[in-house]
């Protein structure tokens, strides 16, 4: 990374230093609440209804890859949390930098270039994601919802999932004059993906047509990648497809952000 981009990252970390305590607390609290309510609470119904505990071989148990609902849910929620964190960090803070506070304009009045702003900001978002998914993973371990040491691979997988959202959303945010477009992005993008990309139930439960749609959504690739790695069921070909899909989204997003940020900052 170019040196000026590191200075942008330095700025982001300086600002983050003011809020890190609250931020870590909420990245800890959120998975605790979700895993307790849905993984344990709702999960006890699911597991009882299917007649399957962890590792049991009934028909419904197979739908959950033969594991407890908690173990099924945790890696899916990990990927979904990465998406939500990425969406949050690459919308309003970008609007603040470009419009509300104009801190990006302050930066580009110095030797720092728009590309440095993009790379510095996305690196910061990457670190934030790493922190959030890292804390999430620790909570998952504490809940006893992890199959083995290989499950830790779900952390970089979730990071990649987050970046695949952060880069294109940041590029989009830099084309917006105000925050109105973000409501639509969350309502029609983030929330439906969160609900229907296999986070809470296998997409095989969806009607065929919706299943096909789900399979092309980026979150499904992230969820399936995280889940297969966490449960130790990952196969080489699907894993490669997931990684290439999410990697391409990240790369295209970065390329687009380089253009949209430049257009906005150099006029």
């Amino acid at each position, binding site marked *: 990374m170019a040196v000026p981009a590191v200075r942008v990252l330095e*700025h982001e970390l300086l*600002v983050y230093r*003011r809020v890190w305590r609250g931020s870590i607390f909420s990245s800890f609290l959120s998975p605790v609440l979700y895993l307790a309510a849905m993984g344990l609470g709702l999960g006890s119904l699911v597991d009882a209804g299917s007649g399957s505990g962890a590792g049991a071989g009934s028909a419904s148990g197979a739908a959950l890859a033969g594991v407890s609902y908690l173990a099924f849910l945790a890696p899916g929620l990990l990927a979904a949390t990465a998406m939500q964190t990425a969406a949050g960090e690459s919308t309003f803070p970008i609007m603040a930098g470009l419009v509300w506070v*104009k*801190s990006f304009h302050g930066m580009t009045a110095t030797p720092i*270039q728009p590309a440095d702003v993009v790379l510095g900001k996305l690196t910061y978002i990457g670190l934030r994601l790493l922190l959030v998914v890292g804390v999430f993973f620790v909570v998952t371990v504490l809940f006893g919802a992890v199959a083995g040491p290989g499950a830790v691979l779900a952390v970089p997988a979730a990071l990649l999932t987050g970046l695949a959202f952060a880069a294109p959303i940041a590029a989009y945010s830099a084309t917006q004059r105000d925050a109105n477009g973000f409501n639509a992005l969350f309502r029609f993008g983030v929330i439906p993906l969160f609900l229907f990309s296999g986070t809470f139930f296998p997409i095989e439960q969806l009607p065929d047509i919706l299943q096909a749609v789900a399979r092309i959504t980026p979150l499904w690739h992230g969820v399936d990648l995280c889940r297969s790695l966490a449960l130790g069921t990952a196969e080489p070909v699907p894993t490669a497809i997931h990684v290439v899909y999410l990697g391409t989204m990240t790369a295209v997003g970065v390329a687009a952000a380089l253009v949209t940020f430049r257009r906005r*900052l150099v006029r």
Partner: protein
Amino acid sequence: MAIPSASLIHARGLTKKFGGFTAVDAIDFDVAPGESFGFLGPNGAGKTSAMRMIACVSPMSGGTLTVLGMDPLADGPRIRARIGVVPQQDTLDMELTVRENLSIYGRYFGLSRPVIRQRVDELLDFVQLTERSGDQVEPLSGGMKRRLTIARSLVNEPDLLLLDEPTTGLDPQARHLLWDRLYRLKQKGVTLVLTTHYMDEAEQLCDRLVVMDKAKIVAEGSPRQLIEEHSTREVLEMRFPVGVQETLDGQLDDLGDRVEHLPDRVLVYTDDGDGAATIAHERGLRPEMVLVRRSSLEDVFLRLTGRSLVD
């Protein structure tokens, strides 16, 4: 004409277009080292667009421009490393402290931490914010924020300081404090380029200025030269009771070189304001208010464009 290599800024035919709209229309100017140079004009005259091109954050649409002897398109980062920018709107980090705002800005220029520490102390002292150094920026007054922005623009010890509307929106006391700081910088030899739509600011700070109107430069010179060239020595201002001004029927027209009828008062341009006031009185005119003053840049602008600077 100035020799380009001796100029810190050299512009010929400098043009900026946004789609079909021409914001800056082929302007020529030079700024010499140590000079304090102003763009005077109303809002929308093209001053900010010109400044942004000089600051290398806006590519020009036509003409030539060199800043510090370099080409803004090719050497943007190198030029920006040596200039300081005070934008029209503060871009301070509200959640950071006064000191952090300055140090992080120093980091943008790649300065080392010990150098930054020393400069930040000096700058805080210079803009009289030492006591607020640990405070967050958000609650500071407008004048303090502006001073912090100026301190921030000086963190790289720039050869050239660009100030876009430095005191717009500030109360008179804050403006005078700011002018005093800028005057000190000028005394130290810092080259200042500023835009303003306040004639008093231009008179206070500018050795030389260009008057801009509708994307073009309409006059150039020192404040004194401009007044001498485009206005009379004195101005007689008269305010009449409501309705009376419309009934004057040219009774004032021969009192001076030129007479301007503004909505709220009449301006008579003459070298002898008191004499003109006496004649008006002898003609039986009874204005509610009579004022004789020296001509200002406001009068120059009115003469050149037929409009007031501040609407």
